[in-house]
Each structure stands twice: as C-alpha cells, then as structure tokens.
C-alpha cells in the first residue's frame, strides 16, 4: 500500500472550508503536546487555554476589542492577496495610523470638539494609505518586490514611532516613561457595552466586513482584482490594469490598517506607547488566510485569533507558560493551514504497491 497525491479535476469546495477546521484541530493537538512537555495535564490545560478567556462579559468584551483590529486589517489585506498583491506591511501601516491619528489627538484633542475622533480616523486612514502607497508606487514604477519593501517599512515605521514617543511626544508628567500624554476624552471611542472595554471600533470592523464583501463579491472592480490574482495573463487579455490592481490591493490594506491603528490608541490604552501594536499587522495575515480571504470567514478567524491572544495571557497567569506561546501557536496554525490546503487541489489516494511498469501504464492518459 502506498499513499499518493492525485490532482483533483476541480479544486474541492468542501476542503476550502474544511482545511481551516483541520488546521485548528491539529494546532490543538500540538498545543496538548506542548502542555504535556511543560508538565501540565494536557486536556485540562487546553480547556483552560480555550475557555477561560470567555468566562464573563468583561472577557467577551476583551475578545471583541482585540478581534476588531485583526478583522479590519485582515479584510483589507485579503483584498490585496486576492489580487496577487503581497502586502505584508500591515504592521507599519497600522503604526502610521497611530502616528497620524496620534498627532491629531495630541494637537487638537484637548481643545477640539466631537470632530476630533472622526478626524483621527480619517488621518489614520491617510497615514496607512501613504505608507502602503510607497510599496505600490515602487512596484508599479520600478517593479520592486512589494513584500520586501512593505516589510522594510514596518521597521522604519516602528523606529519613527519610537522616536516620537521617546522624543517630542513624551509625556512631561509621565515620570520619564516612554509614553505620550493621555488622550483627551474627545479623542476616544465611546464604550459600546457597559461593564466592558468594548468600544465603537468594533462597529468599524463590522462595516469593513460588509464593504469588503460587497467589493469582492458584488462589484466589477472586485471581479477584476480576483481575475488578476488568478491569472495575470487572463487579466491582461481582458484589459484589466495590473497596476490598478496593485494600487487598490495595497491601499485597501493600508487604509484598514491605519484605521486599526487609530482604534488602538483611541481604545482601551488611551495613550500612545512605542509598542502600540502587539503584532496585529502580522497576525492579520494569518487571519486573512484562515478566513479564506473571504470577509465573512475573516470575521470568524479574527475572533479565533483574538482568543489566541487572550489565551496567551491566560497561559502566563494560570498555566505558568510564557505568553509568547501565542506566537508559536499562530505560526503552527498557519503551517497546518497551508498543509491542509494542499488537499484543496490534491486528494489522497490509497493504492496497493504495484510494479513500476504498471504504474507507468496507468499514468499514460
């Protein structure tokens, strides 16, 4: 007997949605192995890991507030990924949102009125779009690889934010800690559910899901983007501009990440720290793939990834494991997802071992 991979005539629609579930199940298995290695009882540790972040209303609020930026960024990135545009600069675009939104909040927040928060959101979107526009411009004009350029800009953005927080934006009353002055109330999102920290940024994420779905499933632009992603040659033949696809793909991610950045500072933190993002820009890449680059799917995968972030804190507090275990599980999840995705295009065929010549003959179609 041997196992062989057989090309399917059509990509399997079932496997497209079964694959994330398989990946999650396999990641849980790996998690149990790691818990066992750490000397914990695997099953109960996994149960603690998954369920304790959902124990009460406050925790559910935390889940939503962490899921919001992940969903928002992932929807934006997915539009690019669908078009074959590899924007991995979500992290830097988010930070630009923090910088632009933060500038408006710190300058006009104390004196301004209710317009401050909307201005921050617009400013953040512009900041993210500008940062995403750089790789788009370099790709369309100079053919520079957008993965490398957008990634390099992540580091530049982080250094820019550090400069601001350690320099001009440092809170004079902050005991020399690297943090900005607290943001004025007019620069903060209103709380949505009493007794939690869940705020209106969740609504923005939901709007993004709706817009993303409409763009990708209902509009001609979305169709053009998808065709470009599937086959650049076909897109060219149909007269769809590849450059436009790059611009739309990059800017969608940039705008979304920039707004998510504003959501971070105008949310529970209410202050700007050099570590404004706990890696949301990178995690959103996983969220986008796990959600099958589909806004509705991303809604669920974003919640799952948010749970993983909260579970990391639980792991630290009640299981005695470092919270960086979240990153490990994120990577494992993505790996298993890509492995399971192989089954979208191939099927496993069990066949008895045969002499070579007969296999040749059966392949001779």
């Amino acid at each position, binding site marked *: 007997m041997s196992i062989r*991979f057989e090309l399917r005539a059509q990509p399997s629609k079932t496997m497209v949605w079964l694959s994330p579930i398989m990946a999650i199940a396999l990641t849980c298995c790996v998690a149990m192995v790691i818990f066992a290695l750490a000397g914990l009882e695997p099953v109960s540790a996994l149960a603690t890991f998954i369920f304790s972040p959902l124990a009460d209303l406050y925790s559910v609020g935390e889940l939503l507030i962490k899921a919001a930026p992940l969903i928002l960024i992932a929807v934006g990135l997915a539009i690019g990924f669908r078009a074959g545009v*590899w924007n*991995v600069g979500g992290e830097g675009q988010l930070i630009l949102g923090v910088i632009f939104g933060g500038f408006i909040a710190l300058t006009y927040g104390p004196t301004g009125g209710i317009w401050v928060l909307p201005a921050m959101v617009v400013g953040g979107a512009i900041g993210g779009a500008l940062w995403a526009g750089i790789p788009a411009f*370099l790709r369309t*004009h*100079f*053919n*520079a*690889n957008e*993965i*490398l*350029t957008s*990634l*390099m*800009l*992540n*580091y*530049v953005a982080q*250094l*820019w934010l*550090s*400069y601001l927080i*350690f*320099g001009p934006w440092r809170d004079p009353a902050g005991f020399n800690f690297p943090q900005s002055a607290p943001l004025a109330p007019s620069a903060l999102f209103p709380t949505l559910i009493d007794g939690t920290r869940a705020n209106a940024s969740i609504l923005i994420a939901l709007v993004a899901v709706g817009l993303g779905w409409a763009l990708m499933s209902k509009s001609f632009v979305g169709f053009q983007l998808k065709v470009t992603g599937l086959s650049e040659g076909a897109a060219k033949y149909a007269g769809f501009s590849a450059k436009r696809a790059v611009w739309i793909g990059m800017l969608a991610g940039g705008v979304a990440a920039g707004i998510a950045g504003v959501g971070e500072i105008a949310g529970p933190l209410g202050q700007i720290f050099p570590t404004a993002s706990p890696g949301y820009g*990178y995690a959103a*890449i*996983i969220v986008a*793939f796990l959600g099958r680059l589909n806004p509705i799917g991303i809604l669920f995968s974003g919640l799952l990834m948010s749970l993983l972030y909260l579970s990391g804190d639980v792991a630290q507090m009640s299981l005695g494991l*470092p919270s*960086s*275990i*979240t*990153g*490990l*599980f*994120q*990577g*494992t999840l*993505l*790996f298993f997802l*890509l*492995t399971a*995705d*192989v089954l979208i295009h*191939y099927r496993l065929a069990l066949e008895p071992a045969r002499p070579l010549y007969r296999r040749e003959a059966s*392949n001779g179609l």
Partner: protein
Amino acid sequence: MGFDLLPILLSTLIAGTPLVYAGLGELITERAGVLNMGVEGTMVTGAVVAFAVALTTGNLWLGVLAAMAAGALLSLLFAVLAISFRANQLAVGLAMTIFGTGLGSYLGKPYVGMALVQDATQAGGGLAQLPVVGPLFSAIHPLIWLSWDYCSAAVWYFLARSRAGLALRAVGEAPTSAHAIGYPVVRIRYWATLFGGAMSGIAGAYMSTVYASLWTEGLIAGRGWIAVALVVFATWRPERCIAGAYLFGGATMAQLFAQSAGIGLPSELMSALPYLATIVVLVLISRDSSLMRLSVPASLGKPFNPQG
C-alpha cells in the same frame, strides 16, 4: 587616520557577516528555483538554539552546529510543503517567518537577560600573538574567517566551477530540461533549501553568540529579510552578494560613524538607515527590467511537477 579607519572597517565586518551567511544560503536556494522567504524566522530560531546550546555546554561550536541543524530542520518543513506539495512558496515562507519567530521567542524566554561569557583566547588563536597584525586576528572572530574561506570561496567555486553547481543552476533555470536529462530536480531543490536553512541557522547563531552575546526578542530585527533583498541586489551572484552584505553591514553601523563624526541626527533615523537603504537598492536594481530578466533564475518561485 589608520587607527580611525580600523574600528570602522572592523565593525562593518562584524555587522556584515550574518548577512554573508544568510545571503549566500538564500542565494543557493534561489539559484535552484526555490524562493524561501522564511530566512528571518530561521535566523530567529537559529539564534535561540545556538545561544541555549552554547550557554549550557560552554562550547560555541556546538551552538553553531545545533543552529545549523535547527535551520535545516525548519527549512525541511518548508521544502515538504513548497517543493513536494507545491504550495505557494511566498505563503509558506511567510508562515516560516511567523512560526520561526514565535518558536524562537517561546524557546528563548528563559534565556532573556542572560549573557554569554566569551573566551577571548578562542578568537584568533595563536595568530593573535603576531606583531602589528596580531590585534586584527584577535578582533576578527573565527566565524568571520569562516564566512570568507568556507562560505564565500566555496559557494563561488561550487556555483561557477563544479559539476554539482552546474546541475543546481540547470534546475533553477530550466527544471523541465534538467529533469529530461535525468537530474533529480526535486532532490536538488531539497538540498539547496536545506543548505539555505543551515546557513540562516549559522547567521542566527552568529547574531546571538558573537554579535550580541545575548538573546533578546528583536535581535534579528529584519536581517533575514535584508538577506533576501540582498540576493536580488546581488543579481544572484555570490561575489556581489558578499560586497552587498558589507555594504549593509556598514549601513547598520552608520550610527557609530555618525557619532564619531559628531553628526547629531536622531538615533532612530540612523537605525532606520539599513531598511531604507534596502528599499533604495531594491528599486535601483529592479527598475532595470532587462537586467532582472537576465539575472533571475527563470523558474524562481515556480513549483515543479515531475509528472508534468
């Protein structure tokens, strides 16, 4: 004058060496037609593994070997997915980076804040006793020497002069033809990927054990990505890759140069220099589309199916 120049040259060497290792490794992988964007994650894992092993055993070389093994193991994962299962190489590479970074920060947690005590006599050996040039030998770590003779020279010879190197290039340029002649395309791509992983492992090991003598999150700081960009900059030629590595090494050390020259720019701007330089260099090389077409291995990033 000579004494002012020497430290600058030395620091450029020290900062450029990890890029020599990672860049040459990735170059070999890409010349076989495999685009492994997971260098950053492999370097992070290699750095942690090397640091942990070197710290517990007290032997730097065991650490380096362990990092090589870890790097090769990680890239084996990449190879199975990207070469055998023909998954999207960009996606798998990205997954490698996220996974390797996560694995590194998880494994490295207990070692944060510990320092590796370097045995000063280990570097250079007896050569350090020589007059005049002696300090050079004690200042230049054996891993730097190795990056010249073992890596640079051997990689150049392998690619340009050896039969195996010819096969590797054939696989990267025209896998179908190479397959038709009878070269094992998949196996050669596996070896090229494993080699790249092991080299990234050394690069990571160098960062944690020689460069910094400690492990901290953010130690690698994008050097793996710079190495990937470096291969493009080098137009897939090893000798240019080495020159580029020292160029970027110099950019990393720009902060020191600026300080010694009394230039009062914000340190963050100086730290951003290598990343900005990478972007500028990528643009300069990539804009010449005919040069790119001639240089890039023709099958780069494209999966090969031996069944046709």
